[in-house]
């Protein structure tokens, strides 16, 4: 939607929005004594939703999304989210602190069969929403004005995508924390192989992302055994240089 092949929810602040939502739910829930079982995922989706809406509104100029403003808005949202997370760590109890550390580093260990009751419906719904819009997304590759000329209702499509992204990213963040760079590298590399047509790209990206994440998890658990590395550390260590390489490649071409 933002017509930039090198964007991802981590850069745009959507993931940290989700993490803030979850953190507030944990700490706030602890303080007020509310049972937090189902609250964290919902709060994470809400946080991701707020962050998505915020960066999109900030980056919209006369019906167009300006990439530079979008990235700057992402930086601002990330910084603000960092501040809230920081504040949460100060007022958190010891157990809550452990949970928070888990959120900022990311780990698949928290995903139980019980958690799948939340994750599976949310991710299926997000994917279905996006696949229904695959053709509109293709048309939007031509440019926003061109898409409008071809009958795409830009506002409706934009907000549906934002909702699907908030849902998918929020629920993901709620259970596995912040795992960076998978959402950036996978679609980008896949686009080089299968092309940008979304009906092909979206399902393949979902599968490839899952494969990469599972492989990373296996690696994270074994590479320094008996210590289990946080998976977010691993994906960032590999993803950041890959990201740099993609940027440099783009500058050459």
């Amino acid at each position, binding site marked *: 939607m933002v*017509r930039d*092949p090198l964007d991802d929810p981590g850069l745009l602040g959507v993931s940290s929005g989700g993490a803030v939502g979850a953190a507030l739910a944990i700490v706030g829930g602890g303080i007020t004594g509310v049972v937090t079982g189902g609250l964290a995922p919902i709060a994470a989706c809400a946080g991701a939703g707020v962050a998505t809406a915020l960066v999109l509104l900030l980056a919209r100029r006369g019906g167009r999304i300006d990439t530079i403003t979008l990235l700057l808005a992402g930086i601002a949202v990330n910084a603000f989210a960092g501040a809230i997370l920081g504040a949460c760590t100060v007022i958190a109890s010891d157990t809550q602190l452990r949970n928070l550390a888990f959120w900022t580093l990311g780990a698949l260990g928290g995903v139980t069969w019980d958690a799948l009751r939340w994750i599976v419906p949310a991710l299926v719904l997000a994917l279905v929403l996006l696949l229904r819009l695959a*053709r509109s997304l*293709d*048309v939007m*590759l*031509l*440019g926003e*004005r*061109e898409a*409008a*000329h*071809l*009958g*795409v*209702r830009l506002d409706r499509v934009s907000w549906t995508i934002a909702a699907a992204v908030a849902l998918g990213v929020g629920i993901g963040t709620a259970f596995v924390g912040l795992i960076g760079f998978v959402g950036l590298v996978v679609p980008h590399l896949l*686009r*080089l192989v299968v*092309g*940008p*047509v979304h009906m092909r790209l979206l399902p393949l990206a979902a599968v490839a992302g899952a494969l990469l994440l599972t492989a990373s998890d296996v690696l994270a658990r074994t590479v320094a055994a008996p210590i289990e590395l946080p998976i977010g550390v691993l994906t960032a260590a590999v993803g950041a240089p890959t990201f740099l390489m993609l940027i440099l490649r783009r500058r050459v071409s």
Partner: protein
Amino acid sequence: MLVAQELVIRRGDADILRGVSCTVRPGEFVAVVGPIGAGKSTLLHALAGDLTPAAGSVCLDEVPLSRWDARELARRRAVLAQHSPLDFALTVDEVVALGHTPHVTRTSNERGQAAVIADALDTVGMGWATDRAYPTLSGGERQRVHLARVLAQFAVGGPGSGDAVSGTRIALLDEPITVLDPRHQRVVLETARRLAEENGCAVLVEGTPVFVRTIPPARSRPWVTHARSEQNT
């Protein structure tokens, strides 16, 4: 019939267009000619419904553009912009297929769409490039691919698709031939004229009046915009 009445387009404090009225009837092929900065492209975008007029109105078949359903309007009106921001590695036939989107329904068949795409590409002399990646094309080739996309937007679905369009159809082309060599300029102008003859109309914007002579004179008439476009017809 496309009718603009007392159109005012404002950007900041400046009136880009002030009180422009014009009418395009089915079958007409109109050229908007004028110096750089006269507001030709602005007029075209106003007629396309991209710009909200500060005053006045643009109506297609007596309904203001803002009241049209987006998809229904897309089946009637196509726009070829001066520059395309497209830089994703779609293949040429994928780009043209996107133009056919307003006609695609659950019942349309793949073969009918493929025929529409092949036909559109042949018309602009790009039939050889079907599988080429769009970013590898030259500027003139890209422009012709986008013209083929406009043609695909006008092509109704094949038999059995239940697809039909009635009423005025209009093609708005912003400097479609500036980057082309003379042979392809002729191809593009011929194509635009044919669109106009098949119960549509075409409006074309061009900076220099030289090309007007190359358009077959039948049923075409040039408009001349003056600087600041206070008057045209």
